[in-house]
């Protein structure tokens, strides 16, 4: 045992003084501590780090750092034939690969003037909704875990695995499905697949009902998440915030409705919105969207044409050249707008592919703003509540 001579009470700075410039952040003044959270930290959602300045328990400055996971996908794609990129793109965002597959394939199809068969559109929509469900389940575990509730994470990750089982059965892969290929999809539904999907959906529904009870009616969660990281309505446009982060603030912005792609115009659903975009409401919106995805998957399986082609014959993929042109396509992933800019110059290789993921906005600029004034113990919960994936920030 040792004795502490004196207990130094932190010199708490009034944030108003920092804002007015009366007080400035001077690390030599012993009023501030600089603390790195990440890149290896369970409280960041991936390989990025937060350089935090603390005054007492309160974060008064935050600088985000990325660059730990830059794999150069966009450049790699310029050196690969059009078809060779489809196994590559899914790796851009690990927990939600299907949007990359879909957007890349759709962009290539648009540039090459290829129409895919109707059944392929339905199958693509099915996998995208399953992907949303899997991604939300993963996120739910992270959100609960970041507030110290590890049990919920164990349940949701198990349920994500049930969805991955379905992916494995459909595509032959659990994480990287590589199912959506330019021209359509690679395989039709296995026999009896719809029944097994239904079994999983029922399990997920039971889980969601329990989560309602143990997370949203949890004194700890309410206490910590309510009022945490409020995104003011007026900065939604300014920062380019999309997805549940924006919807929780009451902005009814959903690409599936605003600019329907695939078969979303044939499905019945309404945009989920909240009133104030704090961590609690964002979680609430996502929870409702999971229920929505369950419903959409059921609708898709019911409305899908019972049979038909799943793939349009492509020109020989070994020598496939696409006329010069460019396009930007977007889709609503679990975190917001996911976009692909693809430019072709008439050769067998993409001239430029640029991936626009929502995490860049949410994890870099927005987080720096929201972190200020937050208690250090809530930084992890805040970051998860923005639902960001650093792999997709850096590509």
């Amino acid at each position, binding site marked *: 045992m040792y004795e502490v001579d004196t207990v130094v009470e932190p010199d708490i700075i009034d944030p108003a003084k920092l804002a007015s410039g009366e007080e400035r952040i001077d690390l030599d003044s012993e009023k501030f501590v600089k603390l790195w959270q990440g890149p290896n930290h369970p409280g960041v959602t991936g390989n990025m780090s937060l350089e935090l300045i603390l005054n007492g328990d309160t974060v008064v400055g935050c600088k985000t750092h990325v660059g730990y996971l830059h794999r150069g996908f966009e450049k790699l794609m310029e050196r*690969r*034939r059009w*078809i*060779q*990129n*489809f*196994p*590559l793109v899914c*790796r851009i965002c690990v927990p939600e690969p299907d949007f990359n597959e879909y957007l890349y394939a759709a962009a290539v199809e648009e540039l090459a003037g290829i129409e895919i068969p109707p059944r392929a559109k339905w199958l693509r929509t099915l996998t995208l909704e399953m992907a949303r469900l899997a991604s939300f389940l993963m996120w739910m575990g992270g959100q609960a875990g970041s507030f110290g*509730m590890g*049990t*919920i994470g164990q*349940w949701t990750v*198990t349920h994500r*695995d*049930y969805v991955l*089982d379905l992916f*494995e*059965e*459909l*595509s*032959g*892969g659990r994480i*990287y499905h*590589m199912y959506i*290929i330019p*021209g*359509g*999809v*690679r*395989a*039709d539904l*296995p026999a009896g697949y719809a029944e097994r999907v239904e079994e999983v959906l029922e399990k997920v529904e039971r889980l969601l009902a*329990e989560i309602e*009870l*143990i997370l949203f*009616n*949890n*004194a*700890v969660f*309410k*206490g910590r998440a309510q009022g945490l990281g409020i995104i003011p309505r007026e900065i939604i446009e300014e920062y380019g915030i999309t997805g549940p982060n924006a919807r929780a603030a009451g902005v009814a912005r959903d690409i599936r409705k605003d600019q329907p792609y695939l078969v979303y115009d044939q499905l019945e659903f309404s945009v989920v919105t909240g009133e104030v975009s704090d961590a609690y409401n964002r979680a609430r919106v996502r929870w409702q969207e999971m229920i929505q995805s369950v419903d959409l998957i059921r609708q898709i399986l019911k409305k899908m044409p019972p049979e038909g*082609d*799943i*793939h349009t*014959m*492509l*020109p*020989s*993929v*070994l*020598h496939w050249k696409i006329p010069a042109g460019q396009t930007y396509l977007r889709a609503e992933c679990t975190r917001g707008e996911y976009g692909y800019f693809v430019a072709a110059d008439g050769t067998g290789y993409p001239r430029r592919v640029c991936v626009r993921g929502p995490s860049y906005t949410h994890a870099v600029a927005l987080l720096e703003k929201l972190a200020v004034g937050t208690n250090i113990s809530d930084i992890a919960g805040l970051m998860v509540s923005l639902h960001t994936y650093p792999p997709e920030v850096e590509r």
Partner: protein
Amino acid sequence: MSVKDVIAPFAVWKRVFEKPYTTAKPLDDRPGAPRYRGFHTNDIEKCIGCGTCEEICQNNAIDLVPVEGRSSKHGDSGLRPAVDYGRCCWCALCVDICPTGSLGMSNEYVWVDNDPEVFRFVPGAEAKAWDKSDLGYARDEQYRLLEPKRVEMPMLPPEESEKSFLEMVQGYSKEQAEKEADRCLACGICVATCPAHMNVPAYIEAIREDNVDEGLRITYEANPLPASCGRVCSHACEYSCAMKNDGEAVSIRWLKRYIADQIYLKDYDKVLDSPDELNGRHIAVIGAGPGGLAAAYYLRMMGYSVTVYDGNDKAGGMLRYGIPEYRLPYEQIDKDIEYIRSLGVTIHQETQVGRDVEFEKLYKDYDAVFFSTGLPKPYAMNVEGENHARVLSGVKVLDEVTKGEDPGFGRSVAVIGGGNVAMDAARTARRLGCEVAIYYRRREEDMPADVEEIEEAKAERVDLITQAIPVRVEDAPNGQVTLVWGKARMVDKGPGRRPEPVLIEDELSSVTVDSIVSAIGQDADYSFLPASVLDRVRIERGKVVIDRFGRTGDPKVFAGGDIANSKRDAISAIANGHEAAKGIDWMLNPEAPTTPHQNV
């Protein structure tokens, strides 16, 4: 916040006795889904080592490697894919594109070893537990990456073609040619099969790139008769094409024809390389068929002065006199020959060596002599009465039709034989208005003629009577002739050998026709060679024995073409001519053969 908020979270306890979803490896086993993309399998016998998997792999994880106990053969490179699991991303694009369907993936996904080297392996060649697995990823029937159907060649319909000597095959348009060229995997399996080893993938690529000039240059590297070969080549390449394993072979021959057809003869010299300066050496070539013309072209390109002696009134040999106009129009042969002539090759027509000029003189006057005199003497049928005036020779009637003479078929013809000459004679007779039947002693699948020719002959209402052995020829009234033939049964001669037709003695039939055309093959004629040369030139079973470079037993004498090879087709003759040109150059410059000319 309410009391409920404090109590509700305790609901988690209700799942405390639930069985976890975790697999307790290694106690529990969880097989991959039936479609799981696990470790590779390869049906090593089905695989042809085309390397398309290597080409499509976006990680460079696949490498084609030699496998012990396996060598290359026609249609098989002898190599097999090795997969590096340090690079593989299990996308299964290799499985999807595999033209033979040999490559697959099992649903096995656990492989533990402390040696990292083992994870680079040759599926199928190294026994693995999952080799026999029925489960695992396979391409869905409803989706494919390779187009199995070739672009259909526009043809004269049979009801028109059977009356006309117009060229039947109309040729591809630009769009059609590019679409067909697109089907090529560029694996190069065909290059080894082609007797002339033409760089097929390169000239097909030139078509895809819309650069027929480059295509023509590539063609001339190994074949100076592309307009003719593009029409009548026996296209061994197409029988070994990798695409044939999952559909139809690429129309390699028609694509070559497309290249030659796009460029006017007058532009050839702008596209192709000029020959080297004359080096003062003189070479004599006997016979202006494909073998002689090829030798003449490549020798001239290397700077030799070449003189060709040919007994016919026009050059081309069997291309002109053996192949009917509807398959190979004369102006196309002329195009090929005129270009060779324009390079400065002298061709003496109607100058038959042994008749108009002595071999000894050529032997004395020239630095080397190449002969490719072909097979002018028809085989005898060895049946009674075959010397009847109404029994005609297949090659002779084709020769006469080319020369504009009447072969004297009459109204009904029986053609004996199953090779291309028999087909050509039968179809020529059909065009001259005859009723034609072909009698062949084996089965249809044994016929040496090209499948297309057999099909086209049938479409043109030529009767095909198989397992029919001619027994004797009898005179018939009104200037006709009777063919007595018997049904044959096929006797198995063991593996690797063709079944032997044996006459069923008591099943004889007869047919009375205006003429019988015998087209059962031809033999060489060596009467022009003086005894002094014949002593040194070895002849076995009617053929001159040559080595790879066309060398015979006499250092100054080279040979090639039908007289020297057993394939007896134009492309083999061209290959012989090309190799002999190299051999001659080597013989004359043993220390420093002409700098390898880019076109040689």
